[in-house]
């Protein structure tokens, strides 16, 4: 990664590999900020998806740079797990919403020790 970034090219507008990395970093930061700042469980969920996909992006980008496949396979795994996670998570959120009429995680602090 670091050699990749160090390669920061000088020939103008060609799409450089590190752009992908920068984009992924930005996406990840937005996701992390959303997760920490928003209270709505649904929005937090979306933020998590954003972070996951930011990671996926780095996988694909680095893989194409290195010409290998492992990362791309990992992406498929991440997507499958994310899909499963969304299914369960949304079901929980819907169930909680039906019971509490709210999706604000700050109000769902019943597990406080």
């Amino acid at each position, binding site marked *: *990664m670091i050699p990749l970034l160090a390669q920061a090219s000088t020939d103008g507008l060609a799409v450089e590999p590190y752009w992908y990395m920068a984009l992924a970093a930005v996406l990840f930061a937005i996701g*992390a900020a959303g997760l*920490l700042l928003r209270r709505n*469980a649904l929005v937090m969920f979306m933020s998590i998806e954003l972070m996951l996909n930011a990671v996926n992006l780095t996988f694909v980008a680095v893989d194409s740079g290195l010409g290998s496949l492992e990362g791309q396979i990992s992406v498929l795994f991440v997507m499958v797990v994310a899909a499963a996670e969304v299914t369960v998570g949304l079901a929980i959120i819907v169930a909680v919403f039906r019971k509490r009429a709210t999706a604000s*995680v700050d109000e*769902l*602090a019943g*597990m406080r*020790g």
Partner: protein
Amino acid sequence: MDFLIFLIVALPLAGFLELLFFGKRIGEPGAGYVASATVGISFVLALIAGFDFLQGGEHGRTVELFAWIPSLGLNATFLWDPLSAMMTLVVTGVGALIHIYSIGYMHGDPGFGRFFTYMNLFITSMLLLVLGANFGILFVGWELVGLSSYLLISFWFEKPSAAAAGKKAFVVNRIGDFGFLIALMLIFNSFGSLDYGSVFEGAEATLTAGTATAIALLLLVGAAGKSAQLPLYVWLPDAMEGPTPVSALIHAATMVTAGVYMVARTGALFELSSVAGAVVTTVGALTAFYAATIAIGQRDIKRVLAYSTISQLGYMFMGVGALALVGGVFHLVTHAFFKALLFLGAGSVIHAMAGEQDMGKMGGLRKKVPVTFATMVIAWIAISGIPPFAGFWSKDEILASVFNRGGGYIVLWGVGIVTAGLTAFYMSRMMFLTFWGEPRWDDGVVPHESPRSMTVPLLALAGLSAVGGLINTPWRPALEHFLEPSFELVDQTHLPEAGVQVALAAVSIAAGVIGLFIAYRRYVRRATQLEEGGRWDTLLAGYHVDDLYGRTIVAPGKAAADVMAFTADAKLVDGAVNGTGWLVNWAGGILSKLQTGLVRSYGLGILGGVVGVLVWLLVAGGGF
């Protein structure tokens, strides 16, 4: 044939199991019939199986049931040889009579079914004990008789004294069992086997004198516990708290003879250690004398008999200790007859007196309970050593054999003779105070003869007490011949020549007659009443041995138990356990503060953690 021997044990066991599960439903008197029938049939089977030995020379057989503990080479095996056959006959024969007697004696008791359950358990255990072909089975039977004895002594457990007596018997027996168990370990260590055959045959070649002495003395500890010898005799007088048939069966005729049986069975080991033999004989002689003196001062008719039993067991120990094994076993048999009779007779008297056991409140019962009286007279003469009744032959054989060993044994013979005189005296005292003189009954007591189910066993035992001694007379030693194959490994002590025998017999008869005469003069002619005060109180309390044991052994034991329970256990062990719990609780209380329940704070934690790890990798790991 093998199956027959298996059945002898299996029948009382089946009776026990049936009564255990259905005893309440069968109720009175069915439970008594079931129990008596199983024991009675066992007796008949034992008779049939025993015919083999009548010709003599037959060594008997072992009956292997199953492999029990293969890693020790220990099998569940029965040994059917003359000695175990004889013991089986005594146990089931006398046992059956006492079972029948109990049907009448326990009439109306709410625990009727339970009583016969325990009785059958006892018979099963005792048969295991005498029929085992190795020390393992012997030990199992040994412990089971201890258990059934405990259950029967404290049969009337609502009575605190009975419950305490059962506990005492159990604990004192445990002390003996401890010695026995160590002896078994030593035996296994020396021989690599617990089978009678390999142990006894290899004993002379394998054991050094020291090991033989150690094993024999430890076995003696076990035997002294079970057979109520000094210093472990204290449980037996208290065991009289149990129903009278129990005293007759367990604490007179059978269980207490287990120690004698065991010493006789292991005679080949005792033969190797002259020290152990001398110790056994001395313990026996001292116990015989000591218990006889206490018996003189008792007021309770059953306690007289209890101390008398201890004293007679002392004679048996003298016999087997001096390697007069046949004499010891012979006395075991005759004693089973007349002592069971005495106990059952005493039970009949107690029954007649509506539960009164104090001889101070009896007297003049001759005419009121004629059958009981007549049968007890036979037992009285038998135990006093007057020929031709049973006790004379066996007691005299022991004393003559002990005398014949010479040296220090002659002193022990003298002790035995004095004891014979004392025996005649205390038994006569009991008989005269109970049956002669003026009635001293409490108001409202109307003595009546017992029912047929009680008197018939009395008559049967009276017959055996009268003629039972004739199975082994000096000129026709049938029992000795019968037992020959069982004792062939042991070089037994023999009787002296005929002239000496007659002289010795004359001395012991004289001792008995003198005892009888003194008692007659004192209690019939002068009509002395029950003595009180002074030395008599010391005798009544059995020389205060219970107090002595209480102060020197029981109290320190209790103190140690208190320290362990209330300091070591309550403070140290519980403290450690509770401390661990408290520590976890305290730590959890602090850590639980982290659980805010706010998802976003967890998220921050995770993010912070990831960033932290990354930073650490970058700094410490020197890049990727």
